[in-house]
């Protein structure tokens, strides 16, 4: 179908230079360039121009990225900006007695261990209640962005943590977010079972050095299991029978410990 005497459209010449020409048209372009030295000279000039531009700006891409363009820093700034309304929400929770005085106790490590667990669990339950109730956007980053969330949360918590895998217990990972507490940022990972029952795993680094075994915590509407390993508090919260929660908590502890 190709007529060898028909001039090649200019688009094909550029596509050839850019390596975007369909393979079946390359022979025709080469033949045309051999027959048309004037065109070939122009094509050579365009190709030289392309190479010269690449070389001229290569310097910029080879430079180290300046600190203000570092992604981790931008994420942090963005979270700080967005945390403000959430602080207001947290103060409402405090007013209802959910937040408690956990900040003071947990930070100073002054609370008796049992109280520290309760206060940790209160933060976890507050976040569980707020975010599992959100049907439209319960998580900040979804299951697809698991690695990003792990990196982001680890960065903010200054503690390496990744969403545990609870599929063995029938819970699939939905995603997660950074949560706010009076003690600073916490990681919240959300799961659901085939019936849509939602469960959260909450991770909050504590300043007090402590380790506490898994304990059952009982709130009005939900149950939880909380424990502390090497100054990091963990809580599993959900509307599940306590033995099942306990089994999941042990699974989480094995994975995150």
């Amino acid at each position: 179908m190709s007529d060898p005497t028909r001039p090649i459209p200019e688009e094909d010449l550029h596509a050839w230079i850019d390596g975007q020409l369909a393979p079946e048209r390359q022979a025709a372009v080469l033949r045309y360039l051999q027959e048309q030295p004037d065109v070939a000279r122009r094509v050579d000039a365009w190709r030289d121009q392309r190479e010269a531009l690449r070389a001229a700006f290569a310097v910029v891409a080879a430079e180290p990225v300046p600190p203000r363009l570092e992604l981790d820093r931008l994420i942090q700034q963005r979270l700080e900006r967005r945390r403000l309304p959430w602080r207001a929400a947290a103060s409402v929770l405090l007013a209802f007695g959910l937040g408690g005085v956990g900040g003071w106790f947990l930070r100073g490590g002054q609370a008796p261990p049992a109280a520290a667990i309760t206060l940790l669990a209160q933060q976890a339950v507050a976040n569980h209640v707020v975010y599992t109730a959100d049907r439209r956007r319960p998580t900040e980053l979804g299951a697809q962005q698991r690695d990003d969330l792990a990196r982001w949360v680890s960065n903010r918590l200054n503690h390496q943590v990744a969403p545990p895998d609870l599929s063995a217990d029938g819970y699939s990972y939905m995603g997660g977010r950074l949560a706010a507490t009076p003690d600073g940022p916490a990681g919240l990972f959300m799961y659901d079972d085939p019936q849509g029952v939602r469960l959260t795993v909450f991770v909050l680094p504590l300043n007090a050095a402590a380790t506490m075994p898994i304990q059952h915590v009982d709130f009005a509407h939900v149950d939880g299991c909380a424990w502390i390993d090497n100054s990091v508090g963990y809580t599993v919260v959900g509307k599940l029978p306590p033995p099942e929660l306990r089994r999941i908590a042990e699974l989480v502890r094995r994975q995150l410990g």
Partner: protein
Amino acid sequence: MTGSGVLTRIEACIPALRRYAAALLRNRDDADDLVHDCLVRALDKLHTRRDDADVRPWLFAIMHNLFISQLRRAKARPAGESLDETHESALSMRPDQENALQWRDLIRGLNALPVEQRSVILLVSVEDLSYADAANVLGVPIGTVMSRLARGRERLRQLTEEPEARPVLRRVK
């Protein structure tokens, strides 16, 4: 569950975004401001995109749109036509005097092109975007990308090879 998450892929594009911004704008600080705004916008819009989609054209599109609205805002201000420090500093990286002169002509020529042609040339030649991706970034049909590319390259060739041909280029069609 990909080995590299979307943030890692965005991060990998930052050097190229800086390069494109530096080639578009006359001042390196302005260029990095544009990249900064682009990244902030991308983080805001992160949850709206499909995870498997290519982040590169998406980021370039965000940056291009910011650049265009910046141009509109700056329209009232007089445009500085002098050769900018950016490109001079890029040129000065090369010790070879003869090359440096050629490159200065090249950059001058590039800056003399209409911005539509300049951005197509840069996206395709320097950033290696496919014609289809460049069309998406610029929000124009692929045929428009092709014709801008062809016109821009030829005009740049004339400007660099035949500086005396400049008056010819000013003719009004």
